[in-house]
């Protein structure tokens, strides 16, 4: 084929058509590899109970026992709080529930937002653990967040996650109502906990 023939309209259109055909094939390949793309959707959680820095060990032990550690948490940097959160998600369900309650009572704005991010960007397992974290937090902001996440999950057509979030929202509702009406009084908090226990039962 000569250069003159290559510069004809027919050849240029054929070349453009070939470019588009190859692009269609690439696009279809990408769609077929959706699983591969989804496999990379997770948060990097490096910290566990064993790997958490020694200066945080004492606080983590307190939190695992369900004892108040609000003062220590307030003094911590964001990266230390992040390590403690990751450590909490790596624990088993009981310890996670205990830690989540203490963490969210001390710094609700940080830990609720952090768990919300995990629900949005984490892997399936991380999402479910984060929902459980929010469910056990027993604070009103978590209830609102879980509600928003539930709407988002329904929109994104994730039935498993949206059902789990609905259940969590139901469990958290008493705390939201209590905090709205009673403005943080400890006795009402206890009542809320009792109601939650009743709901669980």
């Amino acid at each position, binding site marked *: 084929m000569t*250069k003159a023939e*290559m*510069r004809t*309209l027919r050849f*240029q259109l054929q*070349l*453009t058509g070939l*470019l*588009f055909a190859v*692009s*269609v094939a*690439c*696009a*279809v390949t*990408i*769609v*077929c590899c*959706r699983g591969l*793309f*989804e496999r990379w*959707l997770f*948060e*990097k959680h490096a910290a566990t109970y064993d790997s958490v820095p020694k200066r945080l060990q004492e606080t983590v032990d307190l939190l695992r026992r369900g004892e108040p550690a609000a003062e220590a948490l307030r003094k911590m940097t964001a990266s230390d709080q992040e390590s403690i959160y990751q450590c909490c998600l790596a624990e088993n369900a009981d310890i996670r529930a205990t830690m989540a309650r203490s963490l969210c009572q001390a710094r609700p704005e940080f830990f609720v937002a952090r768990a919300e*991010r995990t629900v*949005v*960007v984490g892997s399936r397992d991380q999402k479910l653990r984060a929902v459980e974290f929010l469910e056990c937090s027993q604070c009103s902001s978590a209830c609102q967040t879980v509600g928003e996440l539930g709407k*988002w999950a*329904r*929109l*994104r*057509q*994730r039935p498993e996650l949206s059902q789990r979030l609905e259940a969590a929202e139901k469990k958290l509702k008493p705390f939201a109502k209590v905090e709205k009406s009673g403005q943080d009084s400890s006795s009402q908090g206890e009542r809320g906990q009792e109601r939650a226990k009743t709901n669980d039962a």
Partner: protein
Amino acid sequence: MTLAGENTPLSRAFDALLTRLSIEPRMFRALVRAFVLMDFRNQQFARSTATGPKAVISPLFWVLGQNLIVGLICAVVMFARVDAFFFALVCLGISCLMTATSLVVEFNEVVLTPDDLDVVGHLPVPLRTYAAARMANLLVYVLVVLASLNLYPAIVGAGLRDAPWWWLPAYSAAALVSGLVTGGIVILIYAVVMRGKDYSQSQELLAWVQVVMILVLFYGGQLALRDAQQGIQMAAYRPPEFVHWLPTTWLARAVAADVRWPVQSHVGVIGGFLLAAVVLSACVAAELTQLYGRLQPGSATWRPTRLRPLAPPGALSAPLATWLTRPGEERTGYWLAWTMLRRDVNLTMRCWPSFGIVLAALALGYFSSQLANPFLGASTKGVLSLAAIYLLAPCLPPIFQHLNASREHAASWVLRSAPLANRFAFAEGIRKAVTYRLAVPVLLLLSIVFIIAWRDPVAGVLHVVPAWLTVWAAGCVCQATVLARIPFSQPLVRGESFGPIALVCGAFSAVGTGLAVVHCFLAPSLPGYAAYLLALTLAALIVRWMAARRLAPPRLHGAAV
């Protein structure tokens, strides 16, 4: 395609339709065919794609390729990460932006073409037929650009988990409608508001939008994929407030079948956009037909490109530049390089992207918290703070290579015949223009970011000192090896911007990696760092001396006697 058209029922029906519209079918076919061929051969994008008029692969082909790459990167970065609404919103927004810039760049070739007067002006082509052919050509151009921009989003988006089954046709229709509306608005603005004004400089700048967009998406995509905060997914989860007011948002909601919207809203948005597209198309057709009737020789395309006026040679107004350069050849070289960098938008746009990798490393390090202070100890979190400064030297060879070529290379005989006796001084002037005018602002930016990130001004400044020394040495190497004997004397050729300098770039990268390792281990110790800086200064002086020796004029036989 033949001039007479194929004798098929469809073709006959089309001809009948054209005749009914008082359009000459045979002329219409011939004109459309010629216009499409000229679209492939037009040279508006030639400079940003480095393609000549005789190239087999036309500039338009490269532009379509660039558009496809933009769509590909966009789709890959967001696929499986965001919901269908956000995916459609971003892709439609980018599609509208790119369509608008393409139309502005090609306005004189695709929309208004006074050059046609030379070719068809003397032929008995009815104005109505000419206008119809031009409009058909414009439509084909917009469709091809839209197809290349939206091919990947349309197919990849259909694979999203929450995408409705009608995604492919719905997204394609939305892209078409939004593209037509954007095109209509751009053409009306240019045809009505900017009529008769010279906008060749802005056209040349906009021709680079595709290249810049690819760079932004490529580096931005990498940043997004490495972002520990997962900014894209969080933005999709909770989009910023202003997004809800964008017209593309309404279209994206309609495409993604947002259940928060009632059916009437979906229908209303689609109907509104369709109506806007029809009305705008009618306005464009009316306005352009009127303009075609008034075309006169000597309009915008024939106007010579306005260049920035030359400053008097040797009279450098800036005291800093006078202080930096020695009189004679060095000052001439500095003046020439800096003047060309200021006058030639194309040259400037070729040079600045070379620093993209440095800025990308800096941004990546800053936003992913990997910009640790190496003076506090060796850490893997400080890799990008070292990479950002040692990647600066490998940016210089492409810039020196760009200075060899110019679209005004035919005028280089002026330089060839100039009485420049000291070649090293001349090259030194060019090196100073590049390092002080291009590299120093980047170094200052690096220093400022390090100071902000570390909250330590001394460390921020000391950290970039080795970068300056490597830039100095690299500049000396480039002026001796990469810079041509006569700069700006070569034509722009595809592949020439990187091919010949691959070895130099590789050597700079290897040396830079070695220096980064040494820097990393010596930085925590003050005496060690001082010794490192001293060694680097000595090395730079030696390199400069070697460059001077290499560029020294050859000694004549018997001259030493």
